[in-house]
């Protein structure tokens, strides 16, 4: 693990027990996160991107799910096996997380000030008075107007955008090394989305916190991430610096995702009409059965017998661009 690497995920397998059998939600994912970097993880619903995030913080509900194998190295610990009490000291302190639903992710019966300050008291061991002052600074930092008064307000008195700002303030209150943002803007209006993303990037510049940004929105990734991991059916199919990925997507799934972005420009061949939206045919494979071969083979126009029989290895295409596909021209 090089000095610049902050978080190193290796061959992570996270599984859930369901009535239909064991679901392999994350099936051998590896990636690195460098200090101060913004890494995007993209994929459609159910591809395992959120479970990957929850696995890093070990927030998988123990009644149903578990990290079956793999390692998550961070600051000299393996988070996959770290005792729970030490894990609790890392959460919200060295690694924190914000969630998709700002409307339901804050506790409705506790004031905003309490919810931020308790994190500071817990991890930095300061007095409640000092923690409250820190909460005020954080609200000011995420540009909530009249922050002093807002400390004593409850979540239902704030708008969705403001609640997500509060979540960010809370997550950054102990100066974490890593911020995991799971679809942080999906539930917000488009204009508010842009504000929240700008705020996150600005705070990243200020604090040097590395960000893992989980999203299904390639537009968000293009604007914010430096590097991108594309996931499909619990596996990593492609990883590249953001420019390289958009200029030269190598995996058929990544290309399919990009073709599925609605475009406003006019296509001359179609007689001045907008091009028809491309969809990826077929369905995501069921994760209750071990997948033989490439997970995308059943939906892929290029698939051969080898794709259906043998899982493709990760191939280096140069410049930090890797892809797991037999047919990719690297």
């Amino acid at each position, binding site marked *: 693990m090089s000095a610049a690497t902050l978080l190193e995920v290796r061959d992570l397998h996270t599984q859930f027990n369901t009535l239909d059998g064991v679901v392999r939600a994350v099936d051998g994912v590896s990636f690195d996160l460098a200090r101060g970097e913004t890494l995007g993880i993209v994929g459609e619903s159910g591809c395992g991107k959120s479970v990957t995030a929850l696995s890093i913080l070990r927030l998988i509900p123990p009644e149903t799910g578990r990290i079956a194998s793999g390692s998550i190295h961070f600051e000299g610990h393996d988070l996959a096996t770290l005792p729970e009490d030490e894990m609790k*000291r890392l959460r*919200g302190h060295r690694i924190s997380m914000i969630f998709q*639903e700002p409307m339901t992710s804050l506790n*409705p019966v506790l004031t905003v000030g309490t919810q931020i300050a308790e*994190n500071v008291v*817990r*991890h930095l061991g300061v007095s409640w008075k000092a923690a409250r002052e820190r909460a005020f600074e954080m609200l000011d930092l995420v540009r909530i107007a009249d922050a002093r008064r807002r400390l004593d307000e409850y979540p239902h008195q704030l708008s969705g955008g403001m609640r997500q700002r509060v979540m960010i303030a809370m997550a950054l209150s102990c100066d974490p090394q890593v911020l995991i943002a799971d679809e942080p803007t999906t539930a917000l209006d488009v204009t508010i989305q842009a504000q929240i993303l700008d705020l996150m990037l600005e705070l990243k510049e200020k604090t040097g916190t590395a960000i893992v940004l989980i999203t299904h929105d390639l537009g968000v990734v293009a604007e914010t991430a430096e590097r991108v991991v594309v996931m499909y059916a619990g596996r990593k199919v492609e990883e590249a610096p953001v420019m390289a990925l958009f200029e030269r997507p190598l995996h058929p799934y990544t290309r399919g995702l990009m073709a599925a972005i609605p475009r406003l420009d006019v296509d001359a061949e179609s007689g001045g009409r907008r091009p028809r939206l491309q969809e990826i045919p077929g369905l995501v494979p069921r994760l209750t059965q071990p997948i033989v071969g490439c997970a995308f083979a059943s939906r892929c126009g290029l698939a051969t017998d080898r794709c259906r029989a043998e899982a493709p290895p990760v191939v280096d295409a140069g410049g930090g661009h890797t892809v797991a596909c037999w047919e990719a021209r690297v």
Partner: protein
Amino acid sequence: MTAYIVRRIFAVLPVMAVVALFVFFLLRFAPGDPAAIIAGEDATNEAIEAVRAKLGLDRPMVEQFAFWIWRLLHGDLGVSIFSNLPVTRLIAQRLEPTAALTLATLFVSVAMAVPIGVVAAWKARKIADRLVMGFAVMGFAVPTFVLAYVLIYFFAVRWQMLPVQGYNPIGQGFGPFVESLILPSLALGITYMALIARITRASMLEVLQQDYIRTANAKGLATDRVLLLHALKNAAVPIVTVIGIGIALLISGVVITETVFNIPGLGRLTVDAVLKRDYPIVQGLILVFAAAKVFLNLLIDISYAFLDPRIRY
């Protein structure tokens, strides 16, 4: 918040008015002629008329009601038919044991049931949860008087740890006072505890699924803070509601419990008065029990405003 509390207090007035109306007509709708019942089986017509005049039953109904309310507002609940003592004095004499028993039961039940309900939800489907749920089913199934005799048999007769029955007023020392309340409180409280524990578990289970609990865990908060502050405060409204509903359970249970344990409280007074058809006492007791229930429910309504900042009606 103040406006809410003031509104809740004013909402009590019509409730108590309806109770008073009901209690007033209880005597008038009682089977037979109350004056004849009061005067006794062998009374002459003159004697019955004398009783009627004495009770004011020969007056128009509206006038009777106005007169009764007027006396009620002056704290006069009439006199007992048999002992001729003022009902207020009879009730005051018996108030302490009943108040001590119900409040002790209320306190002990809530203090035990809520924590075990929380543990059951936290350890859902594990052994601790199954024990709690097993206890809850038994608590519902065993009648108060059966449990009372079982408790007396083991703790008082076999092991002689606690008194068999009777009541020691708090004025005669705190130790004996508490000793005399332990078994009655357990017997009276078991159904109540089962009810509260079940609701606590159900309400906590629902809250523990919420996104904000995941947020609290993502902050690395200690388990007790997540459970007792983040979760329990959200789960509190249904729990507190059932605590309030259960007070009616306690009031009806107190009659049985006081009889079994020979406690000279309002429950015993009720049984005696009903058996003797001493209507003024029954009226007074209904008013007192209704007022207690309404008052405790008022406290519970007010507590909502402190538990959930979104409640403002």
